[in-house]
Protein backbone atom coordinates (compact mmCIF):
# COMPACT_ATOMS: atom_id res chain seq x y z
CA UNK A 1 0.00 0.00 0.00
CA UNK A 2 1.36 3.34 -1.02
CA UNK A 3 0.67 6.41 1.06
CA UNK A 4 1.91 9.92 0.36
CA UNK A 5 1.06 11.60 3.63
CA UNK A 6 -1.02 11.70 6.81
CA UNK A 7 -2.50 14.75 8.54
CA UNK A 8 -4.43 14.88 11.80
CA UNK A 9 -6.63 17.94 12.28
CA UNK A 10 -8.24 18.84 15.61
CA UNK A 11 -11.84 19.92 15.95
CA UNK A 12 -10.98 23.62 15.71
CA UNK A 13 -9.27 23.12 12.37
CA UNK A 14 -5.67 23.26 13.55
CA UNK A 15 -3.11 20.78 12.29
CA UNK A 16 -1.82 18.59 15.15
CA UNK A 17 0.17 16.01 13.20
CA UNK A 18 1.66 15.86 9.74
CA UNK A 19 3.96 13.31 8.19
CA UNK A 20 5.02 12.40 4.68
CA UNK A 21 5.79 8.85 3.58
CA UNK A 22 6.33 7.90 -0.03
CA UNK A 23 7.57 10.68 -2.23
CA UNK A 24 4.95 11.86 -4.64
CA UNK A 25 3.57 15.17 -3.59
CA UNK A 26 5.26 18.55 -3.40
CA UNK A 27 7.41 19.36 -0.40
CA UNK A 28 5.79 22.19 1.52
CA UNK A 29 6.87 24.19 4.56
CA UNK A 30 5.17 23.47 7.86
CA UNK A 31 3.39 26.81 7.65
CA UNK A 32 1.87 25.83 4.32
CA UNK A 33 0.62 22.59 5.82
CA UNK A 34 -1.02 24.55 8.62
CA UNK A 35 -2.81 26.77 6.13
CA UNK A 36 -3.93 23.83 4.03
CA UNK A 37 -5.28 22.02 7.06
CA UNK A 38 -7.34 25.03 8.04
CA UNK A 39 -8.66 25.36 4.49
CA UNK A 40 -9.60 21.71 4.41
CA UNK A 41 -11.44 22.05 7.68
CA UNK A 42 -13.53 24.89 6.26
CA UNK A 43 -14.19 23.08 2.98
CA UNK A 44 -15.30 20.00 4.85
CA UNK A 45 -17.88 22.05 6.72
CA UNK A 46 -19.22 23.72 3.59
CA UNK A 47 -19.51 20.52 1.59
CA UNK A 48 -21.91 19.11 4.14
CA UNK A 49 -24.25 22.03 3.42
CA UNK A 50 -24.19 21.75 -0.35
CA UNK A 51 -26.01 18.46 -0.55
CA UNK A 52 -28.92 18.40 -2.98
CA UNK A 53 -30.68 15.69 -1.03
CA UNK A 54 -30.83 16.71 2.58
CA UNK A 55 -28.24 16.40 5.36
CA UNK A 56 -24.91 15.02 4.31
CA UNK A 57 -21.55 14.26 5.81
CA UNK A 58 -18.68 16.46 4.76
CA UNK A 59 -16.41 15.51 1.89
CA UNK A 60 -14.96 12.05 2.34
CA UNK A 61 -12.82 11.69 -0.74
CA UNK A 62 -11.33 14.53 -2.78
CA UNK A 63 -9.78 13.53 -6.07
CA UNK A 64 -7.21 15.13 -8.30
CA UNK A 65 -5.70 13.69 -11.42
CA UNK A 66 -3.08 11.47 -9.80
CA UNK A 67 -3.81 11.48 -6.10
CA UNK A 68 -6.74 11.62 -3.73
CA UNK A 69 -7.34 12.74 -0.16
CA UNK A 70 -9.42 10.46 2.05
CA UNK A 71 -10.92 12.06 5.15
CA UNK A 72 -12.17 10.30 8.27
CA UNK A 73 -14.21 12.49 10.58
CA UNK A 74 -14.52 11.02 14.07
CA UNK A 75 -17.45 11.62 16.40
CA UNK A 76 -15.28 13.93 18.47
CA UNK A 77 -14.56 16.22 15.54
CA UNK A 78 -11.00 15.13 14.84
CA UNK A 79 -10.16 14.63 11.18
CA UNK A 80 -7.69 12.12 9.82
CA UNK A 81 -6.60 12.89 6.26
CA UNK A 82 -4.63 10.45 4.13
CA UNK A 83 -3.17 11.36 0.74
CA UNK A 84 -2.70 8.36 -1.55
CA UNK A 85 -2.49 7.55 -5.26
CA UNK A 86 -5.85 7.24 -7.01
CA UNK A 87 -5.57 3.46 -7.27
CA UNK A 88 -5.23 2.85 -3.53
CA UNK A 89 -8.36 1.07 -2.32
CA UNK A 90 -7.49 0.52 1.32
CA UNK A 91 -7.40 4.19 2.33
CA UNK A 92 -10.46 4.01 4.55
CA UNK A 93 -9.35 0.93 6.45
CA UNK A 94 -5.88 2.46 6.88
CA UNK A 95 -7.51 5.51 8.41
CA UNK A 96 -9.47 3.32 10.82
CA UNK A 97 -6.25 1.76 11.99
CA UNK A 98 -4.62 5.16 12.34
CA UNK A 99 -7.57 6.16 14.51
CA UNK A 100 -7.02 3.10 16.69
CA UNK A 101 -3.34 3.91 17.07
CA UNK A 102 -4.28 7.50 17.91
CA UNK A 103 -6.68 6.46 20.65
CA UNK A 104 -4.19 3.99 22.08
CA UNK A 105 -1.09 6.14 22.13
CA UNK A 106 -2.35 9.71 22.22
CA UNK A 107 -5.71 9.77 23.96
CA UNK A 108 -4.67 7.34 26.66
CA UNK A 109 -1.48 9.27 27.32
CA UNK A 110 -2.03 11.27 30.54
CA UNK A 111 0.62 13.78 29.55
CA UNK A 112 -0.95 14.71 26.25
CA UNK A 113 -3.08 17.86 26.15
CA UNK A 114 -6.11 17.33 23.93
CA UNK A 115 -6.30 19.33 20.69
CA UNK A 116 -2.60 20.20 20.97
CA UNK A 117 0.13 19.09 18.54
CA UNK A 118 1.00 15.44 18.94
CA UNK A 119 4.49 14.83 20.28
CA UNK A 120 4.47 11.18 21.12
CA UNK A 121 7.12 8.63 20.30
CA UNK A 122 4.63 5.84 20.74
CA UNK A 123 2.33 7.32 18.12
CA UNK A 124 5.21 7.97 15.73
CA UNK A 125 6.69 4.52 15.98
CA UNK A 126 3.37 2.75 15.53
CA UNK A 127 2.47 4.94 12.56
CA UNK A 128 5.83 4.22 10.99
CA UNK A 129 5.19 0.53 11.60
CA UNK A 130 1.85 0.78 9.84
CA UNK A 131 2.72 3.09 6.94
CA UNK A 132 6.47 2.82 6.43
CA UNK A 133 9.04 5.35 7.44
CA UNK A 134 9.42 8.75 5.89
CA UNK A 135 10.09 12.16 7.22
CA UNK A 136 7.90 14.85 8.78
Amino acid at each position, binding site marked *: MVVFGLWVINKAGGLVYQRNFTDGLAQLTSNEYLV*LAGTLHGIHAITSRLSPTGPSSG*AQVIEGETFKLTILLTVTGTKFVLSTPLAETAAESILQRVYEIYSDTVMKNPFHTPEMPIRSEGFDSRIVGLLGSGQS
Partner: protein
Amino acid sequence: VIAVGEDPSASTVPPTTSAGSRTNTLTFDEEAKLVYGVILSLRNMIKKLSRRDEQFTSYRTSTYRLHLYETLSGYKFVMLSDPSTDGLRFVLRQIYSGPFVDYVARNPLVSMDSREQGIDNEYFRASVDRMIRGLSVFA
Protein backbone atom coordinates in the same frame (compact mmCIF):
# COMPACT_ATOMS: atom_id res chain seq x y z
CA VAL B 1 -25.80 21.00 -13.66
CA ILE B 2 -24.41 24.42 -13.08
CA ALA B 3 -22.20 26.27 -15.53
CA VAL B 4 -20.12 29.00 -14.03
CA GLY B 5 -18.22 31.28 -16.35
CA GLU B 6 -15.19 33.21 -15.31
CA ASP B 7 -13.26 35.93 -17.07
CA PRO B 8 -9.61 36.58 -16.27
CA SER B 9 -10.47 39.06 -13.55
CA ALA B 10 -12.15 36.26 -11.63
CA SER B 11 -15.77 37.34 -11.56
CA THR B 12 -18.58 34.84 -11.64
CA VAL B 13 -21.61 34.67 -13.86
CA PRO B 14 -24.87 33.52 -12.26
CA PRO B 15 -25.38 30.01 -13.56
CA THR B 16 -28.29 28.03 -14.98
CA THR B 17 -29.59 24.85 -13.43
CA SER B 18 -31.37 21.86 -14.78
CA ALA B 19 -35.00 21.31 -13.89
CA GLY B 20 -35.83 20.05 -10.42
CA SER B 21 -36.28 21.89 -7.17
CA ARG B 22 -34.48 21.13 -3.96
CA THR B 23 -35.70 21.50 -0.44
CA ASN B 24 -32.70 23.01 1.21
CA THR B 25 -32.52 26.23 3.12
CA LEU B 26 -30.09 28.05 0.83
CA THR B 27 -31.31 30.31 -1.92
CA PHE B 28 -29.95 29.63 -5.33
CA ASP B 29 -27.57 32.58 -5.32
CA GLU B 30 -26.09 31.71 -1.97
CA GLU B 31 -25.63 28.14 -3.01
CA ALA B 32 -23.92 29.18 -6.23
CA LYS B 33 -21.49 31.32 -4.30
CA LEU B 34 -20.74 28.52 -1.88
CA VAL B 35 -20.16 26.10 -4.71
CA TYR B 36 -17.84 28.52 -6.39
CA GLY B 37 -15.94 29.14 -3.16
CA VAL B 38 -15.53 25.46 -2.43
CA ILE B 39 -14.31 24.76 -5.93
CA LEU B 40 -11.84 27.61 -5.92
CA SER B 41 -10.38 26.61 -2.56
CA LEU B 42 -10.16 22.96 -3.48
CA ARG B 43 -8.47 23.77 -6.77
CA ASN B 44 -5.87 25.87 -5.04
CA MET B 45 -5.29 23.24 -2.42
CA ILE B 46 -4.79 20.44 -4.92
CA LYS B 47 -2.49 22.60 -7.02
CA LYS B 48 -0.42 23.39 -3.97
CA LEU B 49 -0.15 19.81 -2.77
CA SER B 50 0.69 18.32 -6.09
CA ARG B 51 4.12 18.34 -7.61
CA ARG B 52 3.02 18.59 -11.20
CA ASP B 53 0.37 21.05 -12.13
CA GLU B 54 -2.76 19.08 -11.33
CA GLN B 55 -6.45 19.71 -11.59
CA PHE B 56 -9.03 18.99 -8.97
CA THR B 57 -11.59 16.62 -10.53
CA SER B 58 -14.22 15.56 -8.03
CA TYR B 59 -15.14 15.00 -4.41
CA ARG B 60 -17.59 12.69 -2.68
CA THR B 61 -19.63 12.93 0.51
CA SER B 62 -22.03 10.40 1.97
CA THR B 63 -24.98 11.69 -0.07
CA TYR B 64 -23.62 13.24 -3.25
CA ARG B 65 -20.68 13.53 -5.55
CA LEU B 66 -19.51 16.71 -7.23
CA HIS B 67 -17.66 16.60 -10.56
CA LEU B 68 -15.78 19.53 -12.03
CA TYR B 69 -14.61 20.11 -15.57
CA GLU B 70 -12.69 23.25 -16.30
CA THR B 71 -12.07 24.50 -19.81
CA LEU B 72 -9.03 26.34 -21.05
CA SER B 73 -11.11 29.46 -21.43
CA GLY B 74 -11.90 29.52 -17.72
CA TYR B 75 -15.41 28.11 -17.72
CA LYS B 76 -16.19 25.64 -14.97
CA PHE B 77 -18.82 22.96 -15.41
CA VAL B 78 -20.09 21.43 -12.19
CA MET B 79 -22.31 18.39 -11.84
CA LEU B 80 -23.79 16.86 -8.69
CA SER B 81 -24.66 13.18 -8.75
CA ASP B 82 -25.26 10.12 -6.63
CA PRO B 83 -22.17 9.09 -4.63
CA SER B 84 -21.78 5.73 -6.29
CA THR B 85 -21.25 7.04 -9.81
CA ASP B 86 -17.76 7.04 -11.23
CA GLY B 87 -16.13 9.96 -12.94
CA LEU B 88 -18.53 12.00 -14.96
CA ARG B 89 -16.02 14.50 -16.24
CA PHE B 90 -16.33 13.15 -19.72
CA VAL B 91 -20.04 13.96 -19.62
CA LEU B 92 -19.28 17.50 -18.62
CA ARG B 93 -16.82 17.65 -21.45
CA GLN B 94 -19.50 16.48 -23.85
CA ILE B 95 -21.86 19.12 -22.53
CA TYR B 96 -19.21 21.70 -23.17
CA SER B 97 -18.32 20.58 -26.67
CA GLY B 98 -21.93 19.90 -27.61
CA PRO B 99 -24.77 22.04 -26.33
CA PHE B 100 -22.62 24.76 -24.81
CA VAL B 101 -20.65 25.50 -27.95
CA ASP B 102 -23.69 25.11 -30.16
CA TYR B 103 -26.23 27.15 -28.25
CA VAL B 104 -24.21 29.48 -26.12
CA ALA B 105 -20.83 30.25 -27.64
CA ARG B 106 -22.24 30.45 -31.10
CA ASN B 107 -25.25 32.48 -30.02
CA PRO B 108 -24.72 36.16 -30.81
CA LEU B 109 -27.47 37.21 -28.41
CA VAL B 110 -25.92 35.71 -25.31
CA SER B 111 -23.43 37.89 -23.48
CA MET B 112 -21.02 35.35 -22.11
CA ASP B 113 -19.10 37.31 -19.56
CA SER B 114 -21.72 39.50 -17.97
CA ARG B 115 -21.97 39.60 -14.21
CA GLU B 116 -25.70 40.00 -13.82
CA GLN B 117 -27.08 37.87 -16.54
CA GLY B 118 -26.73 34.12 -16.57
CA ILE B 119 -26.66 31.82 -19.52
CA ASP B 120 -30.20 30.65 -19.82
CA ASN B 121 -31.68 29.68 -23.08
CA GLU B 122 -34.24 27.07 -23.95
CA TYR B 123 -32.26 25.17 -26.50
CA PHE B 124 -29.31 24.84 -24.20
CA ARG B 125 -31.49 23.57 -21.38
CA ALA B 126 -33.38 21.15 -23.57
CA SER B 127 -30.32 19.64 -25.18
CA VAL B 128 -28.49 19.29 -21.87
CA ASP B 129 -31.60 17.67 -20.45
CA ARG B 130 -31.77 15.24 -23.34
CA MET B 131 -28.10 14.40 -23.07
CA ILE B 132 -28.26 13.71 -19.36
CA ARG B 133 -31.41 11.62 -19.57
CA GLY B 134 -29.78 9.56 -22.27
CA LEU B 135 -26.86 8.58 -20.07
CA SER B 136 -26.56 5.04 -18.88
CA VAL B 137 -26.02 6.16 -15.30
CA PHE B 138 -29.21 8.19 -15.20
CA ALA B 139 -31.74 6.15 -13.22
